[in-house]
């Protein structure tokens, strides 16, 4: 009891002293106080361990490169960027770390994440604190639909965009109509959502559904599923797997050497490189690859490769772009005020998104629209261990609107109430 009292007294005394000191400092040294808050703080959260860890590693490399480049060029509106980075682990941890970043570290903006479940948790913190959250890796359509937020901006494509990108290529190759297809799906929010979008697309286009298996995210052995594919003899296998699952699945799929074509609506460069030459197969959508020839894309690939000793993947670009877009927003509005920045981002202003065409945020759901691509294994011997795939021409084509891939307002309604 006595201890408790003493403790309370101490806290009170400390608080009072602290407040007094702060007051005195503010009066006596206003310049110093200003200098202390003279950085613009970015809180970066992304999974760095677990089955999404390999992608998180690229996210971290991307955001660091972005911050270093902006700081080397003088920062934002005269202030340097300061980067705080943490492993988001899972939705609970992501939420509490986001809370701590906002309250204790006083970050000005949150960037990152890959898991849609963690992304939702961070978005809730950001919305309460009225801070912008630029999410760079969450695919779930729900985040742009019924769980959308005025404070959340999406630099990652949503599942519908991925499905339609790969779907167009499958339609072109006559792989859909009248074809029997099997699916394997990562058993969590992202996978379920992706499967639903894939199934809708395949149903609409006359494919014959055989089966879908939900696979636990920590599964590493796919031989029972591969034997099942051999037994069912479908015309197409669609993967809705995630992270390390995809690497393992591809390796084992090639090991069993099934004649059934493989495709999927989500794949990361890290998964292709992890599968390696001779194991990567199938047809997959990607938001970006290091093979793009746009001048800004080549400059980024070369800066990234110089800094980190390997080319960037599709995750690195999103975190890098988030910093670049943020910097441009602050420099052009000459403001760090959240509401001003949101207005700027919503204004339809065009950004260099390191592709052939510029991109922009849709004002009603904050989805960044950009060209996408499909990748397939390179024919013949790869030139090096990174160029295991070839990148298609941009989707949509040059004469189409960027809107054609993303769901319409009717399909995925979002209200920023």
């Amino acid at each position, binding site marked *: 009891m006595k201890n408790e009292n003493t403790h309370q007294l101490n806290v009170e005394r400390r608080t009072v002293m602290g407040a007094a000191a702060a007051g005195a400092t503010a009066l006596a040294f206003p310049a110093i106080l200003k200098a202390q808050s003279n950085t613009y703080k970015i809180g970066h959260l992304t999974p760095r361990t677990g*089955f999404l860890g390999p992608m998180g*590693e690229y996210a971290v490399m991307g955001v660091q490169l972005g911050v270093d480049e902006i700081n080397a060029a003088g920062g934002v509106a005269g202030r340097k960027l300061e980067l705080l980075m943490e492993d988001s682990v899972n939705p609970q941890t992501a939420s509490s770390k986001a809370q701590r970043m906002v309250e204790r570290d006083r970050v000005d903006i949150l960037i990152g994440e890959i898991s849609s479940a963690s992304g939702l948790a961070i978005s809730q913190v950001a919305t309460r604190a009225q801070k912008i959250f630029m999410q760079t890796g969450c695919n779930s359509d729900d985040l742009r639909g019924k769980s959308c937020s005025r404070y959340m901006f999406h630099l990652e494509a949503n599942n519908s965009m991925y499905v339609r990108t790969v779907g167009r290529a499958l339609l072109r190759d006559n792989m859909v109509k009248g074809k029997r297809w099997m699916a394997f799906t990562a058993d969590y929010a992202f996978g379920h959502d992706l499967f639903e979008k894939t199934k809708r697309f395949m149903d609409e286009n006359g494919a014959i559904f055989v089966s879908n298996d939900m696979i636990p995210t920590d599964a*590493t052995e796919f*031989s*029972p599923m591969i034997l*099942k594919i051999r*037994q069912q003899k479908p015309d197409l296998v669609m993967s809705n797997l995630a992270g390390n699952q995809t690497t393992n699945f591809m390796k084992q799929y090639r090991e069993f050497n099934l004649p059934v074509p493989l495709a999927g609506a989500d794949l990361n460069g890290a998964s292709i490189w992890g599968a*390696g*030459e001779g194991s990567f197969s199938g047809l997959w959508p990607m938001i970006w690859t290091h093979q793009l020839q746009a001048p800004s894309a080549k400059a980024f690939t070369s800066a990234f490769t110089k800094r980190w000793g390997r080319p960037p993947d599709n995750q690195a670009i999103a975190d890098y772009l988030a910093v670049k877009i943020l910097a441009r927003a602050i420099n052009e509005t000459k403001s760090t005020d959240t509401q001003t920045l949101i207005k700027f981002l919503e204004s339809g202003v065009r950004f260099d998104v390191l592709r052939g065409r510029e991109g922009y945020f849709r004002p009603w759901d904050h989805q960044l629209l950009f060209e996408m691509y499909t990748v397939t294994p390179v024919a013949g011997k790869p030139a090096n261990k990174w160029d295991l795939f070839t990148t298609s021409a941009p989707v949509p084509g040059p004469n189409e609107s960027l809107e054609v891939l993303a769901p319409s307002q009717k399909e995925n309604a979002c209200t920023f109430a």
Partner: protein
Amino acid sequence: MPFIFLAEQVLNGLLLGVYYLLIALGLSIIFSLGGIVNLAHGALFAVGAYLMVQIAPIVGYLPAFAISPIVVAILGMVLERLFFRRFYKADPVLSLLFTFGLAMILEQALRMAFGASPLQFNIPQFLRGQASLGDFMYPYYRIGMLAVALSVLLGLWALLHKTAFGKVVRAGIHDAEMVRALGISLSPVLTAVCGIGIGMAGLAGVLLAPITGVHPAMGHEIMTAAFVVVVIGGLGSFWGVVIAALLVGVIRGLTSFFVPPASEASLYLLMLIVLLLRPRGLMGERMERLE
């Protein structure tokens, strides 16, 4: 469903069981003799896979295949000499904490040295392809894995049951005090047992490197399964662990086929049932130290 499909899944499940066995037997003998639950076993499995990926491009696949598990075994003996032996007489919680910490250090060291992304490694050219027998087809690589794993297991069985060394190990598992009272030092035996057990985990990593992603956390999944195998099989029993591993492999294979979302949960359900019926595991022996 034709019988051949089911037979294929059962056989494939038996092979899965053999991977678990390589890990679980090592865990089981180290625990049975030294009382150490080696939580770093999965990380050492990953070390085996990383060694393979690093050494194979330099010395070729087959030499790397021979060298990597031996290096992991030597690492195991060094760990035993430097650390594990301090915990034989201590509260088991201390060794749990120590090996848990060691697992994290090893995993983070791999992450710092090689990154979190999976490393490229594939089946060597001469082992690619499939063997077929009527409707039944199976990759050569997996048949090769099975052959290697079975030879190692037979070798271990012979070592434990047909040699003087094995007699000491088995006696030590049963009653270490009595062995010491008879004037036999268990200290070098424990070092050798850790080398063998951890070397087998390294071998499992080497075998799995071409068919799963080689990344720092690759030991997690297999570790949990291996623990379940040890618990189901019963401590101190070679055959108990063998039967449990094959059982777990087959059950996991079959649930992956029939009810995929339950494939992970099936292990724990099996463990629950076995423990309810036989608290010491299928063939667990009465061990003085644990009673």
